[in-house]
């Protein structure tokens, strides 16, 4: 145990603190993911527009999000907004804004891909059967889109969850930061703590992401019938 450096986790309230850090990570990512999913679907539908201006604006938005490192976005929203517009976001709000901004763009692109991948004959057959436009979307297009979206969006969700480790830079103490705090506080007494603590954090991330994967494969099965 000591050679692996797991013993430090059982000192004082260290383990509870690590769990608390995990909760911060999960909470902030879930809020951001929820916002991203809703706005992303809307944004994706907008992106399928044939209007030039709409296309260009969505393209710019998407590229900005792709090119900018999330760290830069965090600094812009947390520090930059205060300097430029006197907007004083709390660190947590800044995280949610940045992650939702990022997630909406990526989710939108996934939705756009999924919607445009629906073959034209699906629409035409539906109209031929006498379904109205909204019925066509509700019964034909959306179910097929959702099924295609699931594996892609799960990938996005887990990526967002992992990227939250950056938010320590603006002062949010999440699971990685708590881990580093524990390692450093014990660097004299247990120099091997890094291994045990990081292994535990790895396990935590796995526990947080695994149910999402499970849910996804369940939904995929259910909807493929």
């Amino acid at each position, binding site marked *: 145990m000591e050679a692996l450096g797991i013993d*430090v986790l059982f*000192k*004082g*309230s*260290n383990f509870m*603190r690590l769990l608390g850090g995990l909760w911060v990570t999960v909470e902030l990512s879930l809020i951001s993911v929820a916002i991203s999913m809703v*706005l992303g679907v*809307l*944004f994706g*539908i*907008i992106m399928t*527009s044939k*209007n030039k201006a*709409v296309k260009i604006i969505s393209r710019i938005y998407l590229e900005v999000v792709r090119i900018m490192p999330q760290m830069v976005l965090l*600094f812009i929203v947390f*520090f930059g907004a*205060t*300097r430029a517009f*006197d*907007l*004083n*976001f*709390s660190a947590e*709000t800044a995280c949610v*804004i940045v992650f*939702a901004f990022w997630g909406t763009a990526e989710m939108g692109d996934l939705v756009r891909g999924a919607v445009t991948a629906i073959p034209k004959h699906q629409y035409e057959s539906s109209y031929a059967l006498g379904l109205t436009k909204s019925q066509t979307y509700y019964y034909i297009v959306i179910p097929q889109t959702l099924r295609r979206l699931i594996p892609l969006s799960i990938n996005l969700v887990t990526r967002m969850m992992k990227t939250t480790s950056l938010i*320590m*830079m*603006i*002062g949010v*103490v999440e699971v990685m*930061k708590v881990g*580093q*705090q*524990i*390692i*450093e*506080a*014990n*660097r*004299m007494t247990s120099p091997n703590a890094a291994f045990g603590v990081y292994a535990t954090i790895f396990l935590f991330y796995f526990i947080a992401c695994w149910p999402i994967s499970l849910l996804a494969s369940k939904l995929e099965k259910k909807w493929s019938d």
Partner: protein
Amino acid sequence: MKKRKLLKKLIALPLIAAMTAGILAGCGASESSGFRTVDQIKQSGTVRIGVFSDKNPFGYIDENGEYQGYDIYLAERIGKDLGVNIEYVSTEAASRTEFLQTGKVDIILANFTVTDQRKEEVDFALPYMNVALGVVSPSDKVVDDLSKLGENDEVIVISGTTAETYFTENYPDIKLQKYDTYASAKTALENKNGVAWANDNTEVIAYAMQNEGYTVGIPSLGSEDTIAPAVTKGNETLLNWLNDEITALGEEKFFHADYEATLMDTYGAEYEDQLVVEGGKTE
């Protein structure tokens, strides 16, 4: 076709509205940015201090979740003398300046080294600690003078540190062995790949304390830098308050007590006078 466009517009509107609302909701919680004067801090009842939460023994969190360390010892006293509560903000080396410039913290007490470049961005109060470079080597072959190094003797440094810059500028003839991480440099010294290891003196002193058979031959090399509290540029009331505080604390030997409470275990008694700056006065 017309209808379809209208539909898109109808979808776009709430989306834009939602985003704007989100931004405005964020503003709801906003306070005016910029620094807070001493009176404003006292009135609010809380001083916000940016510290390290993972730099043992300067600022770290113990197993009970409490902030501890040399910087924290001072922070606690500042809070007490201001008569307010302390809200600690965990900062990283790279974001310390930003936190001050945007007024998100009142004071930074995060092992902040005074440099000319930083002086343009923040205001430093009087110093409370010295830092310099140090050189550690095996006790059976102590390197205590760099001019005595042989032609083939190599010195270990970590890439990107002040030690590397210092040697490149001042001793271009000394061969350097560069490593990327603390751990690999440590292994290199233990395997005798180099005759000595140069790093921040606090680091090498701590290393020699923990590892038997190693001695700090040169405890202070190059220009002595100091560590000081920093406030937002232009926050004169708080700066003056801190300077008065540090001067006053010198009379009761506060920073020696701080050293003995927090740094003694890591650095030992013999470096106390070298590392501590009392009352803001450096020799």
